[in-house]
C-alpha cells in the first residue's frame, strides 16, 4: 500500500473579524539558489551561516541607479559609501563601475587608498577626523567635507603648517520636512550657520571650497525631501557665486534612498512601497535644473547611496537548529544566525525563506538566533511554514551594514562569499578562527 504524504499535524486558531496582517502573498516564496548555485551546495562548501553576495545584482542595481540619474542630468558621480559595506571585493566592483569612495574615518580612508582609489576621488565625511587623518587627506588631495567649526579651524592650522591647500566642502543640515531632522552633523542652513561657514572658508587662503554636501537621513521614503535639499544647496551655490564670483563644482546629496527591505512597524512590504531610483532622480534633478543656477554652471551631482545599492545583493544562508513551543503554545524557531550578524534586524522585518518546498501550512512564528541573550530575535512574528532541524533557510536583502556592523560574540564570524558574473563562487572574507581572535590578545607579563 502506498503511504500518504505526511505533514506535521497542526491546529490553528481562527481569528474572525481581525484582518490578517499576512494577507498579502498567498504562496510561500522559496529561495533555492543564488545566481544559479543551489543554496545546499553553497552551504556544503562554505558552512553555515554564510553571507553570499551576487556581483550580478550589484552591477545591475548600480546600472539602474546610474541610468535613472544620467538620463536626467548632465553630470552625475556616485561615491561608494564605505561604511555600508567595505569588503574589498565589494568596493572593487563599485569602483570598477566608476564610483568614487565616500569614507568617514581614517580607517576607511586607508582602506580606500589600499585598494587603489586615487586620493582625489575620495570624499571624507564624518565628525571624527584627527589631525593625522586630515593630514593624510590633504596630502592625497582628497575632498574634506567639514562637519563643524572646530574642524574648519583645525584644517586652517594644518594647511598652514603643511603649507598646502586643502580641497573642502561643507556638510549642511536642514529642514526637509523629514522627522527626525538630522541636525547633529554639519552646519545648519536655516539659521545661517552654513552661509557663515562658506564665508569663512572663502576668506581662508589655503582652503579651496569646491562643493556642498548634505545627508538628510536614511531610508527616506519621500523623494520630495531630496528636492527641498537640492533647492537649499542650490540657493547656497547661487549666493556663493553672487558674493564671490565663484561657481562651486558639486552638490552632494549624500545617501538615504530606501532599500526594498520592510521597516519594522510598516504595514506594507518595502518592495511595494519604497520609491524607485527614477522617483528620487526625478525629484532631485528637477530641483537642480529649475534652480537659478545657469545651465552651463550646473554643478556635478554627487550621490553617496549606500543601502539601496547593496542590500538586494546580499543573502545570509542559515540552518534551523530547533523548533519549540513557548509556554503559551507559540511556535518558536531557533536558527544558527543571530543579531550579532544581522544588525539590520533591529530596523527591518527581514525576509526569511525556506530553500526548498516546505509544508503548505503556515503558522505565526518567532525566529530566534543562537545567542544566549533575550534580545536575539530575528523576527518576532512571521507567518512561516513548518521546517525541520537541519533545513536550510535564506535571509534576503542583508547586503547593507551587516558585514560592517557585525559583532564577534561567543562564536566566529562566518565566511563571506561572492558569486561572480560567470557564476563562480569565491570566499571574499574568511571565517574567523581562534587564531584570528587570539592574535591581538596580550597576556600581562
Amino acid at each position, binding site marked *: 500500500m502506498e*503511504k*500518504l*504524504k*505526511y*505533514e*506535521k*499535524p*497542526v*491546529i*490553528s*486558531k*481562527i481569528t*474572525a473579524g481581525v484582518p490578517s496582517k499576512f494577507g498579502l502573498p498567498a504562496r510561500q516564496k522559496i529561495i533555492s539558489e543564488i545566481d544559479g548555485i543551489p543554496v545546499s551546495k553553497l552551504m556544503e562548501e562554505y558552512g553555515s551561516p554564510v553571507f553570499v553576495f551576487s556581483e550580478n545584482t550589484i552591477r545591475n542595481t548600480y546600472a539602474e541607479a546610474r541610468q535613472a540619474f544620467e538620463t536626467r542630468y548632465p553630470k552625475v558621480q556616485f561615491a561608494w559609501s564605505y561604511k555600508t559595506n567595505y569588503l574589498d571585493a565589494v568596493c572593487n566592483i563599485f569602483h570598477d563601475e566608476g564610483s568614487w569612495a565616500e569614507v568617514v574615518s581614517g580607517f576607511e580612508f586607508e582602506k580606500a587608498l589600499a585598494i587603489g582609489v586615487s586620493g582625489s576621488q575620495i570624499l571624507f565625511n564624518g565628525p571624527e577626523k584627527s589631525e593625522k587623518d586630515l593630514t593624510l587627506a590633504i596630502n592625497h588631495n582628497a575632498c574634506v567635507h567639514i562637519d563643524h567649526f572646530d574642524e574648519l579651524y583645525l584644517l586652517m592650522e594644518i594647511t598652514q603648517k603643511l603649507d598646502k591647500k586643502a580641497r573642502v566642502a561643507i556638510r549642511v543640515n536642514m529642514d526637509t520636512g523629514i522627522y527626525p531632522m538630522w541636525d547633529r552633523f554639519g552646519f545648519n542652513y536655516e539659521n545661517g550657520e552654513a552661509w557663515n561657514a562658506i564665508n569663512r572658508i572663502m576668506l581662508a587662503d589655503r582652503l579651496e571650497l569646491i562643493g556642498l554636501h548634505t545627508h538628510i537621513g536614511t531610508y527616506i521614503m519621500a523623494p520630495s525631501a531630496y528636492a527641498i535639499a537640492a533647492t537649499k544647496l542650490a540657493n547656497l551655490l547661487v549666493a556663493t557665486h553672487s558674493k564671490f564670483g565663484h561657481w562651486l563644482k558639486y552638490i552632494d546629496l549624500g545617501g538615504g534612498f530606501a532599500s526594498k527591505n520592510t521597516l519594522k512597524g510598516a504595514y506594507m512590504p518595502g518592495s511595494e512601497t519604497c520609491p524607485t531610483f527614477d522617483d528620487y532622480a526625478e525629484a532631485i534633478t528637477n530641483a537642480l535644473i529649475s534652480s537659478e543656477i545657469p545651465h552651463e554652471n550646473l554643478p556635478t551631482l554627487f550621490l553617496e547611496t549606500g543601502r539601496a545599492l547593496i542590500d538586494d545583493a546580499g543573502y545570509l544562508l542559515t540552518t534551523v537548529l530547533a*523548533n519549540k*513551543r513557548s509556554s*503559551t*503554545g507559540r511556535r518558536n524557531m531557533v536558527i544558527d544566525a543571530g543579531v550579532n550578524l544581522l544588525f539590520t534586524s533591529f530596523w527591518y522585518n527581514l525576509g526569511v525563506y525556506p530553500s526548498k518546498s516546505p509544508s*503548505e*501550512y503556515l503558522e505565526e512564528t518567532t525566529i530566534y538566533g543562537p545567542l544566549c541573550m533575550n534580545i536575539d530575535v530575528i523576527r518576532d512574528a512571521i507567518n512561516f511554514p513548518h521546517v*525541520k532541524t537541519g533545513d536550510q533557510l535564506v535571509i534576503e536583502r542583508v547586503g547593507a551594514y551587516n558585514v560592517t556592523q557585525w559583532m564577534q560574540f561567543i562564536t566566529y564570524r562566518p565566511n563571506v562569499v561572492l558569486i561572480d558574473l560567470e557564476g563562480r563562487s569565491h570566499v571574499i572574507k574568511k571565517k574567523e578562527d581562534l587564531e584570528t581572535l587570539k592574535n591581538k590578545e596580550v597576556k600581562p607579563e
Partner: protein
Amino acid sequence: MEIVKEVKISENGFVFNSKTGDSFNLNPTGLALIKLISEGKELDEIKKEFVSAYEVDDLTFEKDFYEFFTLLKHHQIMVQSDPLEFK
C-alpha cells in the same frame, strides 16, 4: 487527560470550543490525529497507525505528537490539571 466535552470537531477539520468561544482549523494530519486521541488511544498505538499509514518515521512523529498535544492544552481543548501527569 481527555478532550474537553465542550469541544466539537467536524469532519472537515473545523473545531469549536464552546467553553472558550474559540474556533480552530486542523490540517488533514491534525484532524486524523485528534480523532485518534479522542478515541482515547495512547501514543504508542497512534504512532503505529501513523507510521504505517504515512511517510513518516517514529521519532519525527513522536516529536510532532507532543508538540500537537502542547497546542491542544494551550487552546484548552485538553486540560492538564496535574502538572506531573505525563502524556
